[in-house]
């Protein structure tokens, strides 16, 4: 079966520390529509300067936590990926 390897535009939302590092709270990002979650994470880390928090963040796809980074995800145009590092202040 032929794999769909077309590219799609998704919206990436940055929260807390990741917003500071990415210097924006929202960005459009072009990415393969079918890929391993870890691959997406690595692309985001490189593109948005997230290295210092690469092991300390939640990645959520349309408000759902991506539980296993080794699974394949299917992205549609306009999908939302949220980058959520912990906050510790209070």
């Amino acid at each position, binding site marked *: 079966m032929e794999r769909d390897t077309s590219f799609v535009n998704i919206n990436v939302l940055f929260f807390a520390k990741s917003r500071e590092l990415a210097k924006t709270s929202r960005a459009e990002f072009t990415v393969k529509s079918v890929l391993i979650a870890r691959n997406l994470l690595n692309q985001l880390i490189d593109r948005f300067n997230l290295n210092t928090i690469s092991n300390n963040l939640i990645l959520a796809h349309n408000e759902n936590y991506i539980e296993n980074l080794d699974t394949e995800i299917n992205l549609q145009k306009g999908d939302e990926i949220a980058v959520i590092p912990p*906050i*510790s*202040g*209070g």
Partner: protein
Amino acid sequence: MIAAANCLETEKAKLRREIAELQAALNAKEQNLRDLQSRTAASHLDPEADLQHATREQYATLNNDDIARYSRQLILSDFGVSGQLKLKNSAVLIVGLGGLGCPAAQYLCSAGCGNLGLVDYDEVERSNLHRQTLHTVARCGMSKTESARIALLELNPHCRITCYPRLLNSSNAMHIMRAYDIVLDCSDNVATRYLLNDACTMLRKPLVSGSALKLDGQLTVYSYGAQGPCYRCIYPVPPPPEAVTNCGDGGVLGAVTGTIGAMQALEAIKIIIGLGDVLAGRMLIFDGSSCQFRNIKIRSKRPNCHVCSAQPLITGLIDYELFCGMNANDKDNAVKLLEPEERINVLDYQRLMKTKAHLLLDVRAPAEFEICQLPDSINVPLAHVLDDSYLQRFAQQLESKELPIFVVCRRGNDSQIAVQHMRTRLPEHSIRDLEGGLHAWTNQVDQSFPIY
């Protein structure tokens, strides 16, 4: 005339500061006296006399005062008399009486939670008052737990309040927490968050975890129900210290901590009386700048979690400051990156500033520079030093290697980072930072210079 007026202003500022310091010292002494007095009586401050030893009173009926006081929530169909009784018989531990803990405690106490435990090692400061809604100007210098206790008893004298004015750590946490049904994480640091998580998991107590910074807030309930994840399931490893910002450096808005703190009280009440859907397995992300709430469905228990899985690797509390590489508080530690000859004392700088041509760079963020600044200082945020964009901006001045450069920031930490970086680019220049930053300037040179 102007000089005389300035002198008068300085004198007034100095007196105000001295009075505030004396007031704080007085409060601390009064606190000491209260501690000593209550040591003989069965004390709300005595950790040994906590609720597990003194049996918690159990009520089967509401009295007339309860009915009048709680009438507006009693008539809620999902709440009712049985809910109010559960609340009256419950015990909640609040860790941290700051921006989150104050509103959380306020709502739990006024709603009729029968037993509240308050943990905080810190004392009230003026810079707390914009968000820590239980404390007052008159109680600066007092223990936060005691200050909160006074405010809460004014709201509801029927609440039994136990104060633990100490740092929660691996050796006292289990003992203190065991006596409570639910724990609220209203702390301000990573080490305490892991400590509370591990202890709650081991004691099988729900942990209502709130946090806030700048205009962001997060809220979820850990260790709730059979499938509910713990903090380590979501964040198995602590962030590196350089990725952690505290409220003192990043800033925070009181209405944001208030929003999250109030919701922590709501989740605790829901757990106690069995109302609605508890925020477990979901995380609420609050973005105050756009006023958007997002509910992210988070994972269930991580099968190989070190603490909450069937075969945990960690079965007792560990050293969390070591584990996180950070202290269990939100205070800044003095950084020591530079050698003494690479730094200048503020008094020496004051002597030199009027007589010798130089460049003074202030590396704080523009919002901080706007608050106060030294004469003739130029604002170059640290980021612009680190990305070398300052080289172009000051190309002309930097041509002469004879022009000494001084760097200043709030406390003398970022200025060291800046000097270290600038020395690699300008090895032949004289570059030094002002030791202790603007805080040292206020303390040693000019008492009327504002401190924040």
